[in-house]
């Protein structure tokens, strides 16, 4: 590892932006207008992009170096545990950092147009910059604990930005839901770290637990520690499996997988650039990144890998079915995001880490493009999000239409866009898996069906929005957006296209894809990047590719038949034919309702019971003891007042009376004193004489 201190610039530049727009943005905006805020908070992310790209080039130029590191100081040193405040950039985190800063900066530019004339303009950019800081900390962290700091930071920013328009209770609720659901995942993450600490840091014997000499959460040290302790068990479960599953619970929360996906559709309440940046391109992929980062852990546990892959595949299909019947354009994209994240988890779950990372990368571009296209449509429709009320926008918004079209090509896995290669690679790798707890063809089948549904619902959204009779808003046709918005769409669409060249499959070129070779140093722990290969030939790969193109074409065809020009009566008839099924799916399988009944209401009941107990029993006890104390105090006061004070006052009165009597002697007249003196002398003499006479001296 080479020391490269300037790595810190990458996260700190957006942090500076967040500070500047957070502290001075309000005044800047009042004084100089939105432009001043924009210069600061859009400029700094671009600088961060420059820094990230520079660092990655430097890493790549040093061929034999696997990672750049930047250590500041020792953060925590307790017993055998030592945690450094250190960043770490290998090829995976370098790719992530460049992607995050590039897509993030583009979305910042877009937001200038989207958030125009919003009074919270400066606040929005402060949060967005803060998010970039947290996200970059997450991906560049050199150890799990620092990663966790970023992990919590992005959760916070997500909460702040979902509830950005906080005057609407619905938005505030959605933010809270996202935060609370994420807490469940965070618990898993934390528990995973503790299990690693417990299982790897010390030793168990008859006498109990003994802390170890050395433990580290550093990504460079963990594989070595793990290799020495892969056979250890906690409560009868191997440590890697337990830790892997717990970390995956964390990943489920952040990356919206079953059963913790429910927050993501509600998170669409935030501004659309937020949905694009946080809830599509970057933050929600943090879970995938975590699994890829901890590849050494998952490789040690086929069980944990199976869990990841099965949950991913199930989510991919499940969310796709819901996406088919949603009418809110952002909700469609939200379910599509959940589904696509499921694909990535299958990729990393079957050990094809590079395929998962590749889909993560391409998805960031085309999904950001889709979301921002949807944002452009929403702006044109004056914040109407219901696709049933849209139509014919393609004629008046050509830029938005064609970028959206191309991003649809990419996500649905039609050839000539990057999504085709990344998704097909995952499908192929899933099929080509053996040795996990679930057969490869089964995973493939789920993903294959999901791909067909994806094609259907994405093209459905395209046809509903852009074809047919052009709608009128207040008697006028919607208009194309300004170049600051359409330009960003174009750049993202180009990115979604260009990225396909790094993922051209082995079946075509005869050599592993360029992206696989690029990531190989990160994932080759004493072997190939591929872990559980079934050894299928390239003929099968080509066949599967044809099959997935066919299923995508079928989805496209159905959408075209049902929705093109919005003239077909087929969807109505289908709905009438299967009313209960339609309701079930449209109401999202009543998962939210189930959670509400199973978790939320009991929690509320419990808190109500606790509140009753508090106000009646606890308060009663407190009040009783208060009353007793008052009574005692009253008695004590009476004793004080009458007995003690009486004694003290009596003494004082006595002294006073004595003084009044004695002062009479003090006449102040000199002759009186003199007479007293003389008399006293005489008396004394007489006394002495008398004593002498009495005692006979």
């Amino acid at each position: 590892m080479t020391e490269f201190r300037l790595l810190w610039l990458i996260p700190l530049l957006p942090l500076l932006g967040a500070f500047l727009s957070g502290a001075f943005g309000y005044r800047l905006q009042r004084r100089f207008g939105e432009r001043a805020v924009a210069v600061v908070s859009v400029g700094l992310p671009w600088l961060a992009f420059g820094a990230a790209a520079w660092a990655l080039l430097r890493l790549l130029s040093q061929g034999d170096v696997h990672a750049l590191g930047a250590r500041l100081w020792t953060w925590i040193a307790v017993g055998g545990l030592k945690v450094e405040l250190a960043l770490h950039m290998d090829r995976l985190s370098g790719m992530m950092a460049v992607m995050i800063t590039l897509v993030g900066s583009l979305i910042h530019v877009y937001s200038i147009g989207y958030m125009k004339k919003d009074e919270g303009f400066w606040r929005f950019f402060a949060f967005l910059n803060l998010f970039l800081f947290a996200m970059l900390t997450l991906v560049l962290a050199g150890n799990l604990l620092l990663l966790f700091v970023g992990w919590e930071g992005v959760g916070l920013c997500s909460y702040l930005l979902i509830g950005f328009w906080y005057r609407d209770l619905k938005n505030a609720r959605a933010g809270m839901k996202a935060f609370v659901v994420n807490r469940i995942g965070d618990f898993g993450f934390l528990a995973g770290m503790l299990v690693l600490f417990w299982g790897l840091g010390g030793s168990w014997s008859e006498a109990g637990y003994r802390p170890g000499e050395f433990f580290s959460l550093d990504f460079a040290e963990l594989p070595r520690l793990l290799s020495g302790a892969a056979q250890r068990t906690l409560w009868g479960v191997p440590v890697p499996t337990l830790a892997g599953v717990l970390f995956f619970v964390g990943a489920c929360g952040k990356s919206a997988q079953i059963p913790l996906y429910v927050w993501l559709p509600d998170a669409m309440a935030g501004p659309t650039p937020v949905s694009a940046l946080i809830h599509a391109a970057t933050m929600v992929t943090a879970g995938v990144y975590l699994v890829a980062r901890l590849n050494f852990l998952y490789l040690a546990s086929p069980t944990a890998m199976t869990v990841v892959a099965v949950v991913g595949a199930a989510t991919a299909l499940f969310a796709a079915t819901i996406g088919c019947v949603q009418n809110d354009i952002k909700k469609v994209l939200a379910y599509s995001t959940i589904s696509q994240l499921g694909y990535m988890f299958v990729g990393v779950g079957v050990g094809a880490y590079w395929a998962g990372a590749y889909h993560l990368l391409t998805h960031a571009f085309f999904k950001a493009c889709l979301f921002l296209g949807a944002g452009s449509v929403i702006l044109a429709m004056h914040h109407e999000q219901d696709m049933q009320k849209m139509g014919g926008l393609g004629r008046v918004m050509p830029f938005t239409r064609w970028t959206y079209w191309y991003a649809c090509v990419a996500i649905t896995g039609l050839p000539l866009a990057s999504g085709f290669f990344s998704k097909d690679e995952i499908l192929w790798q899933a099929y080509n898996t053996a040795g996990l707890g679930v057969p490869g063809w089964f995973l493939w089948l789920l993903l294959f069906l999901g791909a067909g549904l994806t094609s259907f619902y994405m093209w459905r959204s395209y046809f509903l929005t852009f074809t047919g009779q052009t709608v009128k808003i207040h008697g006028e046709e919607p208009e194309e957006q300004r170049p600051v918005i359409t330009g960003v769409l174009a750049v993202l669409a180009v990115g979604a296209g260009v990225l396909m060249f790094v993922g051209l499959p082995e079946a075509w070129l005869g050599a592993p894809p360029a992206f696989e070779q690029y990531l190989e140093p990160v994932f080759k722990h004493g072997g190939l990047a591929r872990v559980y290969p079934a050894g299928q030939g390239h003929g099968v790969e080509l066949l599967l590719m044809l099959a997935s193109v066919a299923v995508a074409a079928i989805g496209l065809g159905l959408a075209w038949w049902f929705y093109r020009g919005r003239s077909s009566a087929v969807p109505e008839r289908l709905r009438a034919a299967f009313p209960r099924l339609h309701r079930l799916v449209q109401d999202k399988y009543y998962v939210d309702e189930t959670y509400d009944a199973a978790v939320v209401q009991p929690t509320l009941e419990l808190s109500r019971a606790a509140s009753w107990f508090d106000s009646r029993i606890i308060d009663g006890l407190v009040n009783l003891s208060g009353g007793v104390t008052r009574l005692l105090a009253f008695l004590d006061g009476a004793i004080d007042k009458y007995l003690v004070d009486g004694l003290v006052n009596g003494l004082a009165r006595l002294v006073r009376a004595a003084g009044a009597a004695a002062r009479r002697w003090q006449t102040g007249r000199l002759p009186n004193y003199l007479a007293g003196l003389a008399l006293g002398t005489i008396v004394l003499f007489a006394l002495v004489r008398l004593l002498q006479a009495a005692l006979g001296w």
Partner: protein
Amino acid sequence: MTSVGLHHFVLLSAVLFSLGIACAIARRNAVAILVGIELMLNAAALNLAAFSRFGALRAEGQLFVLFVIVLAAAEAVVGLALILAIHRRLRSVDVHRADSLKG
């Protein structure tokens, strides 16, 4: 005719002392009080001189008399200064009016 002996002197001294103390107690004029005190001092001095002549004391008696004379002079100075101060303040030397020590 009996010769003059010790007890004559002592008797005279006692008379002088009694007159002095009566003067000091009874008079209201501060100067008169000072005179009474002078009388008492001189009664004591007379006693000392007599003891020096007839009693066991020798030269010490005479010496004490000298001390008493000096003491009386000093006392008169201090006393008169006090009286002047009182007079300046009260425009009177009546000791009954100088009663600020009254309790």
